[in-house]
């Protein structure tokens, strides 16, 4: 069937041109002089520090957003309350809004003339251009993922089992730990994987609020940018390959954890 082959060709060519060829090129450029220089650029203390900052931000944001996401999903699916529709819409907002806008909003809040800035400044706490701002920005952009994954699963699950457990005298906690959580665990894991990927890869919001001070508030992603701007492309390629390898690892994890209905 020529038509089928033509469509297949179009689709695969598009993926090749836009996705696979560029990615392959980065790997080629990184490793074209062997492993030694790659290792050298990666063990640069400034680069190591940038990765540390990124990991710290993710280590705070992922657990926080996992708990928040599960709670929000439970509230949206199981409870009726005023402003539920609003919560449902707002939880998606970080997906729709530009990361730069998120960064600007945080900047306005914590700058010296912002709402919290003067008070925090008076108490000697620096948020902007320091680690707290990076963590806050990372939290903001990765809010929706866990809730988005858990909500449909909870809807499908229904609450008959929980009601049955309740009639048998199970407390609220017992019901959550023994019934609800085990049933939604794959959705939670899937959401956590997506959240982690987003946290490690955040650029726009962090670029605004971090100040990008080399060796202090630079994250892995902003360091890629700074290295390219300073024509140290080999360093940028090396960091990118690490981040890309993480992304590919995330994809593999997603394949393994995704419920097996589709494709």
């Amino acid at each position, binding site marked *: 069937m020529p038509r089928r082959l033509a469509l297949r060709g179009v689709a695969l060519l598009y993926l090749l041109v836009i996705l696979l060829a560029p*990615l392959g090129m980065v790997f080629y450029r990184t490793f074209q002089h062997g492993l030694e220089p790659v290792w050298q650029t990666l063990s640069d203390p400034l680069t190591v520090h940038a990765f540390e900052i990124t990991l710290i931000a993710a280590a705070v944001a992922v657990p926080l957003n996992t708990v928040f996401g599960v709670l929000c999903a439970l509230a949206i699916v199981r409870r009726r309350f005023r402003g539920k529709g609003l919560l449902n819409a707002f939880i998606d907002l970080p997906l*729709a809004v530009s990361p730069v*806008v998120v960064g600007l909003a945080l900047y306005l809040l914590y700058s010296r003339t912002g709402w919290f800035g003067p008070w925090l400044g008076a108490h000697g706490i620096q948020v902007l251009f320091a680690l707290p701002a990076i963590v806050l920005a990372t939290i903001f952009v990765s809010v929706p993922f866990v809730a988005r994954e858990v909500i449909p699963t909870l809807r499908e699950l229904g609450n008959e089992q929980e009601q049955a457990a309740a009639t048998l005298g199970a407390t609220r906690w017992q019901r959550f730990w023994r019934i609800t959580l085990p049933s939604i665990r794959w959705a939670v894991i899937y959401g956590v994987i997506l959240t982690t990927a987003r946290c490690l*890869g955040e650029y726009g919001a962090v*670029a605004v609020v971090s100040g990008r001070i080399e060796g202090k508030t630079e994250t892995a992603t902003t360091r890629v940018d700074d290295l390219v701007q300073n024509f140290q492309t080999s360093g940028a390629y090396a960091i990118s390959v690490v981040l890309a390898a993480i992304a590919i690892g995330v994809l593999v994890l997603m394949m393994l954890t995704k419920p097996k209905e589709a*494709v």
Partner: protein
Amino acid sequence: MLPLAALLWEAKKTGKEGFWQAISNPDAVAALKLTFGAALAVVLINSVLGTVTAWVLVRDDFRGKSLVNSVIDLPFALPTIVAGLTLLALYGPNSVVGVHLAFTRTAIVLALCFVTLPFVIRTVQPVLLELDVEMEEAARSLGAGQLTVFRKIVLPNILPGILSGSVLALARALGEIGSLVLIAGATVHTTVASIYVFQLIQDGDSAGAAAVAMVLLAAAFFVLLAVGALRFYVTRHERA
């Protein structure tokens, strides 16, 4: 939530006049025009090629299909700055294929196509999977050509999927920055709205930045509304 309130506050503080001044500044107008134009173009490209790809993934069969299927999600997992760098590596100044697109508008379209690639595919794919092939076979047995079958049976079924994927892609394209900073940069012809806002912040003009950010924020709200309305419309039979 609070950060967004602060943003509104800052935009309000400058007053209506200051707001309009910041928005109608030629640089701001150019950046916003470019952003909306590029985003619309990219959404069109990806709604067509995304539908084709989803079709191939569902109806076609070839070796390595499941691998291709998992690669689709790569733009979601890959940091956007890395996405920009990969495009720069292949289509930048030292291109091995002889294509030099860095700091052009084509590069913007390319980068946005990259980051919004999965949206339409991932919304159309499940609908196509559920779609009954017998309907199409029945139409064909009654003498309908391929094109008629597609236009009269397949398209109406997958259209909601295409639309909701496109709307999400549009939101993403309007606010994108990470993949653009390296390959499109901030030249006169390639400054998109998010990069423009970023520059204003760096220059200390937070009022101007807030004004342009408000436009982006409003666009995001509209997109969320559109998604909600679409969801409402698509499920109308289930609710009735």
